[in-house]
């Protein structure tokens, strides 16, 4: 009996730990930015994604099936944008992230173009969160996509956009 109750306690503690770890990157590392005046904040809740999925999107006739397919698996979107101090913010951001929790997918650094970093949090083959950090001359963008993210599908999206443009 005692062993059983002890195991239950252990499991409970683990559960408590894991729910805490499930917070998205912006909540975890950039909490203080959210209430910062310099930032524009956008948040789309899991509930909203459910609604969008149910309505099967009639607002936008151009939107391709590929797009719907990606949106369907999203569970949350958080965007932070700042117009000032972009380079400083970018440097701060890429140092803040705990690289044991988030895996660096790609870094792009180029003199003429924006600096970018893509980070993912995955569990096996499934990417649970994708974080994009962009630091250009006058823009700092943080985007966190939460859900079941298929990188291949996302990458293919731009093809369908180019067809439209």
């Amino acid at each position, binding site marked *: 009996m005692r062993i059983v109750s002890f195991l239950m*306690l252990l499991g409970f503690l683990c559960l408590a*730990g894991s729910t805490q770890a499930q917070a998205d990157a912006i909540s975890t590392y950039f909490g203080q930015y959210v209430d910062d005046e310099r930032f524009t904040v956008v948040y789309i809740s899991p509930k909203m994604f459910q609604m969008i999925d149910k309505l099967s999107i009639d607002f936008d006739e151009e939107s391709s099936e590929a797009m719907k397919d990606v949106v369907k698996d999203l569970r949350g979107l958080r965007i932070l944008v700042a117009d000032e101090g972009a380079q400083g913010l970018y440097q701060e951001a890429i140092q803040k992230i705990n690289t044991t929790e988030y895996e660096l997918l790609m870094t792009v650094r180029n003199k003429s173009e924006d600096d970018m970093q893509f980070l993912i949090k995955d569990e096996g083959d499934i990417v649970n969160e994708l974080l994009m950090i962009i630091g250009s001359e006058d823009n700092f963008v943080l985007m966190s996509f939460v859900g079941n993210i298929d990188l291949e599908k996302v990458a293919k999206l731009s093809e369908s956009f180019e067809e439209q443009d």
Partner: protein
Amino acid sequence: MNTIAIKQLVDKYFEGETSLVEEQQLRAYFKEGAVAEELQEYQPLFQYFATAKREELPSDFDERIVIELQRPAKRRFMRRMVQMSSVAASVMLMVAAYFWYPTTELPSTVSNQINWEQYEITDEEEAYKETKAALKLLSRNLNRGAKKAAKSMDKITKKKRRIEN
């Protein structure tokens, strides 16, 4: 009784097929002491049965059994104490670890209180458009990064080939 008959009886005894009378005969034979050499190995066994039958409970049996019963109770208490304290110790360890470990993740507990709702987009169409724009940016940048990586890989392999040739 001759040795051969006894031997047969012994064999029968070990097969469990002797009658009570026959067993009595066996015991009597081994008790007498004039045991044939080949049967001497069985002597202690049958003698033991004979003496064990005569054994009686000592007069202080009741007292002794009460004492014996009391002793394990004490021991059981001690064992329980040891178990309890080891469980308590491991729980303490876990609690300690829980408070010790996440010094770097401490912001997450604070940031869990971020009120995302005030930034939430509550209009489906707008939410969808925002998502689409975000995905567009993400997809483009992912491809740009990948293309750049592919290009530089190309350059590297070309250079390598030149060196090799």
